[in-house]
């Protein structure tokens, strides 16, 4: 209910790294001066491959309410195949933002008056030298471009910290390529 809290919902599949992506953004947001950062994964019975979501709340002030997000300001979708299974825009606020990893151009997607940003993160990650299917670093680039919430350089640093010892530079590159190749569509 607090107006100062930005609510971001991450949709992915179990094992896809949505939690890690949200955690990276949480770290970068905290470094950027957001004192209130709360990231809450799906509670309970996550199974590999099944749709999962993660809540990320960001505020300049400490956040006390840990309940899951029901009216997000933006949703991040790591895998466009989820669109057939999950109502990703459920509760999305008016003029909300959908950030989507999808191969088709942004013009192909319409979410009922919402802003939409599309990047082919799966492709960009491979371009960056990552094995196919690693999308959680790349989607952060798309998020940075579309949301403008956190500076891409701070995010890339957070990615390198998180993936320390696990191809940090390739993950960082994936985020930068996705950042450069994100199309935003704002409905009239």
């Amino acid at each position, binding site marked *: *209910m*607090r107006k100062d809290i930005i609510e971001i919902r991450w949709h992915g599949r179990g094992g896809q790294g949505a939690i890690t992506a*949200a*955690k990276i953004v*949480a*770290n970068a947001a*905290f470094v950027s001066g957001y*004192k209130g*950062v*709360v*990231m*809450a*994964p799906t*509670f*309970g*019975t996550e199974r590999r491959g099944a749709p999962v979501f993660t809540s990320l709340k960001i505020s300049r002030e400490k*956040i*006390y*309410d*840990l*309940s*899951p997000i*029901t009216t997000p300001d933006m949703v991040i979708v790591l895998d466009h195949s989820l669109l057939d299974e999950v109502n990703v825009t459920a509760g999305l606020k008016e003029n909300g933002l959908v950030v989507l990893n999808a191969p088709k151009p942004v013009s192909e997607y319409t979410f009922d008056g919402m802003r939409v940003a599309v990047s082919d993160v799966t492709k960009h990650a491979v371009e960056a030298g990552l094995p196919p299917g690693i999308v959680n670093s790349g989607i952060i680039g798309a998020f940075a471009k579309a949301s403008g919430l956190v500076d891409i350089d701070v995010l890339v640093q957070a990615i390198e910290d998180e993936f320390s010892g696990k191809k940090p530079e390739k993950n960082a590159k994936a985020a930068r390529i996705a950042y450069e190749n994100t199309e935003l569509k704002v409905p009239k």
Partner: protein
Amino acid sequence: MHIIESGNVAAATGVKLARAQVIAAYPITPQTPLTEKLSEFVESGALKAEYIPVESEHSAMAVCIAASTAGTRAFTATSANGLLYMVEQLHWAVGARLPIVMCVANRGIGAPWTVWNDQQDTISQRDAGWIQIYANDHQQIIDAVIKAFRLAQTVSIPVMVCYDGYLLSHTYMPFDVPEQSKVDSFLPAFAPTHFLDPENPGNFNTVTLPDIRPGVDGEMAPGYIEIRHNLHQDLRATLDTFVEIDKAFEKEFGRGGNPLVEKYRCDDADFVAVCIGSLSYQLRDVIDIMRENDVKIGVMGVQMYRPFPDKAIVDALRGKKCAIVFEKALSYGNQGALYADIKAALYTSEKKPRIHNYILGLGGREIKTQQLLDALTASCTSPDTFEDTPRWIGLKL
């Protein structure tokens, strides 16, 4: 240094900083990431401790009991049915006066199976004699773990550090990790005067008679009832001791000041919401909304539930119109346990408020801010007309 990590990792980091020497644990959701992290600390050498992957929670506490009796700092963690599986051991650890620290990621109890949060597990153990401290966020978790070790060894009573499963255990938020050197100066090494020692043999937890009995040295030794009376007196004295330890912690780390209850906008309030755990933080947003509508209301989190801080609670509620007690647990067939405790504490006090009881969130049922707002509004609007029985929030069928 601040890091963003889960509540379980906050707890594990506290255990590492406290230099636990023997850790035994059995995995159970939602405690598992805590034990995974501790085993990683031990395997990597970041924590020099013995990690025993036991075959049950009963055995986890057995290892802690024995290791503590032998003179080492022992730790375990559990949730829900795991806690209940070690119930016999909980009582044993207290009677043996062992300074064990245990984290409990609060979870509902089966049947039916639930992995989600409520507080029935630890509340059901309120009479075991363990000290129970509840944390409301990750900073409080890591700080409470460190304080708990010092408290436990000061009063020779085991301490549970409880935090809401998933809501805190699996949620990530920033918290400050204290410096090791400061923790070392705050928390002296465990150096018991009596321990299992071939050079000075003693028999621990011997069968004790109903009556007193002369000992080897001619002195009269207590019977069971004197030993248990001493435990109870020590637990009552623990309230003051924990306040002192919290002050010492605040001096070293700059955090603390609310060891028994944590009040928010209570001083000038007519109404006070009372609860245990992270719900008291969620309620702050509701309090702010109601304050904007000129309802003089505050919220109080009960941080130490056993020993029961009756004086602190009565002081906080003196002269208020109404205390509204929210509970994620129930003394089945009666009322909320906290509600009953507060009601009993208020019995002999002057200017006692009305008191209401709400049960909510059992088995992880989502607690919506609007529901809290509605409940508080109902209580504040008609404080005198409530029945002496809990109302349930969020029932759908």
